[in-house]
């Protein structure tokens, strides 16, 4: 049965959409959070500790809560209703980007903190400008930063709260693996549900293996 599912066009479509949305969210979040994490890490300002604490608290944002908040924002009766993003893949990307940003920011900061002060000293003493030194430190932290991105991707791929509330699980348009699993379970089709779940896990596994390979090739 699972083999049939592997080639079923609907399943392929749902899987492709899951990946597309998760990857897009991760990329956008990375573009936002890496500089943000760098900014926070490399500057000492009043309340820095409070900010970092807040970010870490937001790690455990319930997905349904983020889904609800974004729903209220994108709904017709909300401030951004005119953009028509509710129940669209674009809206889902927005929601998931918001969801995974705290974790990616926090882990970026942690990754950069893990680079010893000697690296900065060495870079500066060899003539690095402020930006060059920051860039060098980020490169030294690249393995940990990749782990941060991977975690963000994993969370986006396997969450259901945001996908359901913002996407609406519309067949052929916003249905992804997680919402499909929820639907099939509620229909009582346990086998199909499990099969989708296995696909989801397999994707995570493959992505993990690929990332590990890349990290292995780096000498960090």
């Amino acid at each position, binding site marked *: 049965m699972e083999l049939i599912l592997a080639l079923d066009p609907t399943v392929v479509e749902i899987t492709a959409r899951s990946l597309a949305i998760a990857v897009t969210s991760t990329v956008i979040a990375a573009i936002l959070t890496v500089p943000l994490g760098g900014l926070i890490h490399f500057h000492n300002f009043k309340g820095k500790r409070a900010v970092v604490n807040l970010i870490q608290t937001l790690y455990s944002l319930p997905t349904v809560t983020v889904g609800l908040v974004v729903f209220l924002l994108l709904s017709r009766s909300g401030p951004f209703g005119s953009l028509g993003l509710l129940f669209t893949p674009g809206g889902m990307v927005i929601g998931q980007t918001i969801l995974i940003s705290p974790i990616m920011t926090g882990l970026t900061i942690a990754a950069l903190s893990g680079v010893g002060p000697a690296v900065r000293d060495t870079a500066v003493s060899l003539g690095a400008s402020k930006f060059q030194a920051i860039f060098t430190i980020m490169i030294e932290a690249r393995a940990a930063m990749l782990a941060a991105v991977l975690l963000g991707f994993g969370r986006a791929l396997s969450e259901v709260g945001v996908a359901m509330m913002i996407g609406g699980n*519309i067949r052929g348009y916003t*249905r992804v693996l997680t919402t499909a699993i929820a639907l099939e379970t509620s229909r009582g089709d346990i086998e199909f549900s499990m099969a989708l779940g296995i696909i989801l896990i397999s994707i995570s596994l493959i992505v993990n293996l690929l990332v590990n390979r890349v990290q292995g090739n780096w000498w960090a």
Partner: protein
Amino acid sequence: MKGRYLGISGLALILVLLCTSAAAADDEAEEGQKELLRISTTTSLYDTLLLDEMEEIFEGMYDVDVRTVSGGTGIAIERAVRGDADLILVHDVVRERKFIDDGYGLSRTCFAYNYFIIVGPEDDPAGITGMSPSEAMKTIMDEGTENPDLVKFVSRGDDSGTHAREKILWDRAGLDYEEVATSDNTWYVEAGQGMGPTLRMTNEMVGYTLCDTSTFAAYRSELDLVPLIEEGDVLLNVYAAIPVSPAAYPDTNCEMARNFVNYLVSDEGQDLIAEYGTETIGKPLFNPARGNCDLIGCTGDECALQLADDYCSLAEA
């Protein structure tokens, strides 16, 4: 400084562990004394909170802990098929009969009914007011095909009781459901969610949907949609209770399930059903089955009759 933090968090952890094990012990003690009745029902019924009220009363009548889970009709029945429930309360006569024929249920007892309604925007862009249900559906499709931005229909898309009824409506209109539901039809949106979220989506998209009156009443305050088609035999929605058969699951709490069914069809139960929801929307959400058996097509033993004392032992024979 570090030591102190360690000490405090260690203490907090121990406190949490103590509290949880105390709570768990409490639960176990309770379970040892009280009986358990597990009910599996659909979201349409559950979301109206009628069952919450009935549970409270029932738990006062018997020394029992009633635990209710809800879901789509599919999973509601499936839970009982797997033996995870003692009683199901659903509204899909075809699947109910199959449940009984397959040996999982003993018999069905109708206890309440209401109607499905077609709801939509107040200004009714497709102009379906006054039509019969099937006519209305066909009109929605015609208008929607021409003008998908103006006219949309949102389907449950989840094989629920409501979804099953929707398919019947399309069938009665002479249309092939598969053709209606293809992804190419942008006016037709398959939500794949429960009734509440589907209503919200319909509201957002300013479209039409098929809904049961009780859920609609429950969500009405947050919607701009109004009921447009409320009449028609085909819209009849009958709720039935089916105890799980001891032949299938010997451990099932058949006696207590029987007691609950008897409460449902008792005068007190039927009265409660007849009045429920009147305060919120001015008219009751449900109609009692009592006295309406012919109307709703529940005949003989199925209709609102008390189950005998030896009901459960008969099954085992």
